[in-house]
């Protein structure tokens, strides 16, 4: 099916709220109606038509040609269909997604995939801080679905992860997997300081030896587990690199013993 194409004409002069541009919110709208959708975040009105050339297609699949770090909330709350951004985006991309596919071919900023419950997000470049994490005041971060970052991620990736899979094919910043409640975080490269800080449950997999986890993570030896094979089979379609880490021998650390202590960090040996 031919996608709805929004071609960026020039860099936006203010930050944009891109959340109205999801398949379900644009369903049934004509090209003209779509051009009239407001995206501004300041007092100055800015409509889709002011920024983009709109070529008609099914809103089930939206292709945004051109990106900007001022594109905030791309795909926020989307429930089905797909959005592809051929460029970079700002904060909160894919926040509270409940389904569908979101692909960002460039970098995305902070709170990518924040609080998502289902669906699939792919970031072709790097992701900012708090990948999948909650906003201030929220109890849980991401609680389902899968997010794959082909590059690196900033600090606190998978913060308060509740369920679902977060994959970082590059390196992760400090406090990766901090306060995780459950779920799975796979970092193909190295992670920064305090990985798994206050981890309650859940699985963190690291492809490269990283900073010390501290004395509250206890060494449980090197293993090749059936669970790794299942996880590799599940993530393999979306990330061959993550799957390859899971097929290696992994050293298991149990923790964080400072809290519940039912989580685990696997480090490739």
């Amino acid at each position, binding site marked *: 099916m031919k996608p709805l194409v929004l071609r960026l004409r020039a860099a936006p002069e203010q930050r944009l709220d891109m959340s109205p541009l999801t398949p379900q919110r644009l369903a049934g709208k004509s090209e003209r109606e779509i051009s009239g959708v407001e995206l501004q975040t300041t007092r100055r009105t800015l409509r889709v038509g002011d920024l983009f050339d709109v070529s008609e297609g099914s809103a089930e699949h939206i292709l945004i040609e051109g990106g900007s770090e001022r594109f905030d909330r791309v795909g926020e709350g989307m429930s089905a269909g797909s959005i592809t951004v051929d460029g970079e985006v700002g904060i909160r991309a894919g926040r509270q997604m409940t389904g569908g596919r979101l692909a960002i071919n460039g970098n995305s900023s902070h709170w990518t995939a924040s609080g998502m419950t289902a669906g699939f997000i792919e970031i072709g470049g790097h992701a900012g801080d708090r990948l999948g994490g909650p906003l201030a005041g929220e109890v849980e971060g991401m609680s389902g679905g*899968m997010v794959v970052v082909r590059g690196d991620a900033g600090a606190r990736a998978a913060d308060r992860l509740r*369920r679902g*899979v977060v994959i970082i094919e590059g390196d992760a910043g400090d406090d990766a997997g901090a306060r995780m409640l*459950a779920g*799975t975080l796979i970092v193909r490269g190295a992670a920064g300081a305090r990985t798994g800080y206050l981890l309650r*449950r859940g*699985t963190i997999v690291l492809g490269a030896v990283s900073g010390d986890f501290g004395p509250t993570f206890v060494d449980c030896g090197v*293993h090749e*587990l*059936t*669970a790794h*094979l*299942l*996880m*590799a*089979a*599940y993530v393999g379609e979306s990330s061959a690199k993550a799957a390859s880490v899971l097929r290696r021998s992994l050293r298991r650390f149990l923790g964080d013993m400072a809290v519940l202590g*039912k989580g*685990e960090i696997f480090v490739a040996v």
Partner: protein
Amino acid sequence: MQPLKLNGVLIDDTFAEAFGMRAAAIVITADSPRWARQAAVTMTGYATSVIGCGCEAAIDRELRADQTPDGRPGVRVLVFAMSVTDLQNQLRNRVGQCVLTSPGSACYGDLEGQERLKLGDSLRYFGDGWQISKRLGVKHYWRIPVMDGEFVCEATVALTRNAVGGGNLLILAVGSKQALAAAEAAVEAIEAVPDAIMPFPGGIVRSGSKVGAKYKSMRASTNDAYCPTLRGGVETALDPEIASVLEIVIDGLTSEAVANAMRAGLRAIVELGSATGAARVSAGNYGGKLGPHHYHLRALSPEGGGHEPPGEQET
């Protein structure tokens, strides 16, 4: 009607009468085919008949590493019971005692469906608090720490209410050697049919039963009409030259699977022929009043022409 004789084998104009059952399909994997098979053989031991064993179970087929969820060699097992409660209890106990305990094993459901049986959801307590829940997409697994690593088990498995139990073939021959040769040929052919199992020893029953007995406590007793040694003393179903009878009992996930299995078995018996195999093939029924599924031998025979759709419900 003309008697139907194929390659010297007389095909009776009768039908097998079968019953609705509840069934589950699971995949057991291990580090090697030998240990996947071992777990499956142990789990399906003492599971020939629901009357005395609580369920009927056997290996459906072996799976290559690329056909299983975890990429290790595996075996597909089918379990049949008369009720969902029986199926639940049997599955939990058998997987808990025979698969959980087997080196390197893991266990997964292999049917799709909304109605589920608890598997890992009840076995997880063996982990004594160390069990780990892992959700990957729509699948939910439990990882239970054991002495050789972890036992991985899917939390729930689907069941089917459309399963059929009691498809059968009666193989009549002039001697025990010929009866066994024909039965073995049929078993080998039926083993290749998906979604169907033969729960008796090696797929063969030598003690077919009739309903009731002279003793009040017995619900079933020996099928005297087919016992060659009683031929002169009872109302026999045997021709004078028949000296040995063996039966093959088939359970299938669908009625179609049972029909396919009987068709494959009949073909193998006919191909072997009467010289070294069966003189006659019949089937067990109760007059057609008890079981909803009827499988007519002539319609399922290699040259049966398929006048009536096999396995169709007649009630």
